[in-house]
């Protein structure tokens, strides 16, 4: 059963809220949905499940699953929240129906007055009726919603499902499928008994398996109840294999959102039986050996459940007390369903049919199109947008943006602009450019801008002072050592003591290269009387992770007094991102060195490989619990080097940010020590749109 259902505007005001749990759902669940999906648009890699590209997207947070749909033209979002353990299949349909009805009733008001002027309390009963219509009844909660925004208790009571006289017949059909096949016959017998008892007592609420049954605390232990260890049999099974059998049910495949199987209840308590080795066996001996029957029953019941659902819904809504309201609603809802089917058909027909035919037809349509283009005020359709978006995509690819990122940007612009009107005297092209600039700005702007100096000064301040550790990673030859020296120069200018660590123990000449850099920087800092810099190296052939750990320990100088260095900069060896052996050593490096910031250097000249590079590097940096560091993105920033060599084609910025969601922190614009800049988003967008 649903935990909560919310309707809110894109500007943040909640118009309708229905909550079915007694402490209301914490608002941070919805806020994280808005943050991650709508604003930051975190997308999983395309190779993973199709859930993100399917028309029914879902979002998981803690133990909840959220499904949503949005009405873009009015600016409304509809969200349904339920526990991940339940596999509710009717939520999509409910969302579409609620969207249709709500937009039909309140759409104009919301558009005109915004979120503040709209009072949606009367929607409560309608919403309950829609839930009744969609809910298949297997996981129905006891009674209607416990609390709601402005809904009245009497209203809900009236609408609870059909009266006892009509329901007895259906109730019997609905109930048994819910319970898993544990000796099917006895359980369904139980179900029937429950139904008959409760219809006898109360007239309104249909008999429901109690809520405790629908959500046991540990589903796995209950479900393992029916796949039980075999008894002794010929020859004793070893302890390990027996343990394996006990725990293997945990890997029972789950359908959808970990659909739970309710265990059998009630009747008499089962006697606990113990076998010779001290393991508890549950269930009848007969049932234990009959594995095939159990699973076949389960599958059959699940299928049965879905078929039943349709029947019950159709029959249930026409009889009983709530007849009056539901009938009206039925008309509305049927109209919505019919119109949506029609829309699908017409859109299919559109794609295969041609435009107006004949010379006169095409000329007039072209002229009118041109006219509308100049004057503005045209409502944009898919056809209008197709051609200009294609050109925009080509333009982006010419600017060295990876194809994946360009496609994503164009599709987001399309969803934004579909069915919108162009402004006065703006052509379609201008509207698309404007929208694309906004999308690019949004992708490139970081959620919180990195102030490196601020972070460093905070870490080296007196109470628990420790050195700030920065490490640089990247593929071969992108400019890690050069950019590391630029960062060292910048930090030296700010009066910090820097330790440069030669973590590249593989490439010939890597340590010597850093030695030369450090010598230059020492000379420069001596002249300008700022900071101090040193090199920490252990020669070639050692493990980079241990070198890094020793360096940090050396800089911290714990137990012997003050720390010797403020910042530790660790250089690493360049490695191909598709070489798994080298990439896995990065994880160990991350654990041992424990850097505060990990920057990946990517060169602006790279093409479509940038996406794969960024993704492969980001997923290596997991902490000891298996979580990606830095809020699940992996690294802390990108340094895009060699920006002076590409001129306008700075599309790599966009590709790398698109692939991972990690912001770009620095740009390398030359080969001298002072050629390091921060990212100015307006400048980057200008260059891309030029």
């Amino acid at each position, binding site marked *: 059963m649903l935990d909560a259902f919310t309707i809110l505007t894109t500007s943040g005001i*909640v118009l309708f809220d229905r909550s079915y749990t007694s402490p209301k759902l914490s608002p941070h669940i919805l806020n994280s949905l808005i943050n991650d999906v709508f604003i*930051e648009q975190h997308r999983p890699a395309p190779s993973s499940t199709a859930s993100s590209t399917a028309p029914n997207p879902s979002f998981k947070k803690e133990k909840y699953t959220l499904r949503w749909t949005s009405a873009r033209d009015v600016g409304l979002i509809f969200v349904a929240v339920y526990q991940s353990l339940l596999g509710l299949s009717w939520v999509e349909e409910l969302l579409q129906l609620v969207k249709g009805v709500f937009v039909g009733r309140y759409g104009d008001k919301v558009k005109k007055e915004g979120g503040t002027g709209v009072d949606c309390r009367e929607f409560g009963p309608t919403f309950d009726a829609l839930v009744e219509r969609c809910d298949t009844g297997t996981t129905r909660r006891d009674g209607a919603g416990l609390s709601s925004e402005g809904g009245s208790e009497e209203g809900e009571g009236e609408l609870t499902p059909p009266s006892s006289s009509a329901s007895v017949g259906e109730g019997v059909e609905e109930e048994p499928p819910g319970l898993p096949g544990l000796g099917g016959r006895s359980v369904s017998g139980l179900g029937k008994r429950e139904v008959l008892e409760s219809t006898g007592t109360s007239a309104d609420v249909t008999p429901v398996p109690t809520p405790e049954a629908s959500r046991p605390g540990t589903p796995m232990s209950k479900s393992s109840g029916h796949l039980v260890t075999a008894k002794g049999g010929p020859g004793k099974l070893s302890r390990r294999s027996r343990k394996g059998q006990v725990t293997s049910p945990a890997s029972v495949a789950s359908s959808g959102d970990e659909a739970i199987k309710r265990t059998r209840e009630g009747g008499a308590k089962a006697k606990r039986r113990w076998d010779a080795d001290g393991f508890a066996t549950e269930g009848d001996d007969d049932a234990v050996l009959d594995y095939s029957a159990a699973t076949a029953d389960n599958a059959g019941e699940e299928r049965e459940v879905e078929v039943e659902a349709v029947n019950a819904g159709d029959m249930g809504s026409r009889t009983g007390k709530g007849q009056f309201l539901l009938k009206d609603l039925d008309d509305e809802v049927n109209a919505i369903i019919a119109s949506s089917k029609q829309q699908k058909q017409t859109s299919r027909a559109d794609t295969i049919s041609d435009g107006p035919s004949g010379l006169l037809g095409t000329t007039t349509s072209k002229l009118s199109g041109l006219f509308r283009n100049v004057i503005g005020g045209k409502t944009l359709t898919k056809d209008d947008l197709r051609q200009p978006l294609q050109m925009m995509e080509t333009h982006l690819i010419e600017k060295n943006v990876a194809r994946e990122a360009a496609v994503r940007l164009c599709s987001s612009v399309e969803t934004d602009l579909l069915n919108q009107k162009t402004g006065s005297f703006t052509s379609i092209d201008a509207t698309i450019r404007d929208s694309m600039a906004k999308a690019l700005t949004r992708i490139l*702007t970081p959620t919180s801008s990195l102030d490196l100096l601020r972070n460093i000064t905070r870490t080296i301040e007196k109470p628990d002072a420790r050195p700030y550790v920065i490490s640089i990673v990247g593929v071969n030859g992108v400019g890690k050592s050069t950019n590391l020296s630029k960062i060292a120069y910048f930090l030296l200018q700010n009066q910090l003591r820097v330790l440069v660590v030669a973590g590249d123990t593989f490439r010939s000449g890597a340590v010597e290269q850093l030695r030369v850099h450090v010598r230059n920087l020492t000379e420069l800092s001596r002249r300008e009387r700022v900071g101090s810099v040193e090199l920490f190296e252990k020669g070639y052939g050692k493990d980079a992770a241990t070198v890094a750990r020793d360096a940090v320990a050396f800089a911290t100088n714990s137990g012997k007094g003050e720390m010797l260095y403020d910042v530790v900069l660790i250089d690493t060896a360049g490695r191909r991102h598709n070489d798994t052996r080298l990439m896995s050593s990065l994880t160990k490096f991350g654990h041992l060195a424990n850097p505060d910031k990990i920057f990946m250097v990517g060169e602006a000249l790279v093409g479509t490989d940038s996406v794969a590079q960024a993704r492969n590097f980001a997923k290596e940096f997991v902490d000891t619990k298996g979580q990606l560091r830095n809020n699940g993105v992996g690294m802390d920033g990108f340094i895009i080097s060699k920006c002076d060599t590409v001129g306008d084609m700075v599309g790599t910025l966009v590709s790398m940010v698109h692939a991972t969601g990690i912001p770009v922190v620095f740009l390398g614009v030359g080969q001298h020590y002072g050629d390091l800049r921060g990212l*100015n988003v307006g*400048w980057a967008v200008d260059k891309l749109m030029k």
Partner: protein
Amino acid sequence: MPPNNVTMDWATWAFSPSPSAIIVTLLAVLLIPILVHYILYKTQAPRVLPTILLVGPSGGGKTSLLTLFATGHPSQTQTSQSPQSAICQTPSSTSTSSDRYRSENDTSARDQPTFTLLDTPGHGKLRHHALSSLNSTSALKGLIFVLDSAAVSSAANLTEAAEYLHDILLLLQKRHTGAKTSKNAQPIPVLIAANKQDVFTSLPAGLIKQRLEAEITKVRATRSKGLMDSGVGMEGDVGGGSEDAEWLGEFGSAAFGFEQMRECDVEVSVVGGNVRGEGGKGGKVEGWWEWVGGVV
């Protein structure tokens, strides 16, 4: 034979010095400009209401404040993704700036001024709405910076709020110094609304003021020592702006104080309050209404 007798007669009459012709001419001369005036001024755009902009870090309570001011009771809100505006009216208990001009014995009912309240999203990626509204909105009369008094006790949130406030104040300073004529640069006062004062761990307004000033001092110091922007050096931009263009407040001062903003005609005041009171009603917002009344 004259081709058209009627027109000839009429023309003769019109140009003759007969009293009826003179009266008709007089009426035409007087009435036509008045008619034209009415037509023009009826189709003119409606009078622009004064606008107040709501900015602040995410989770501060800007959208709740908007609903409270607009409808009188706060509604439930989530994170905003797009800006919105609402027309609000100051409550009758608030005194407005026009009260200065009323005599004490004046008992006529005063009409409460209405204004437009513009709410912007606080999320980092959507701050460009706020920053562009600052520059482009006409009739912008004031700015309310809403922050969560309880959240700023943590260092990370305090830094985020201080950085945003620093950016806003810097924009206002540049607007003032960059104004071409003295007419364009209207003074925009800033109210720092310390929201959620009813929460147990909230800090009082005075303490918030001190902490914000200290944090802004650090932020402007690191900004000035930080790297240059990519948009600056690469274009071969001349000078890239003088050093004091990016420095907030008095150039070269050790510590930042809000009174340094007075130089740019930006009055900053810090007032506490809470949008949500007991049981879903409005909380204590009188201090904020007073400020609004003084500004509108």
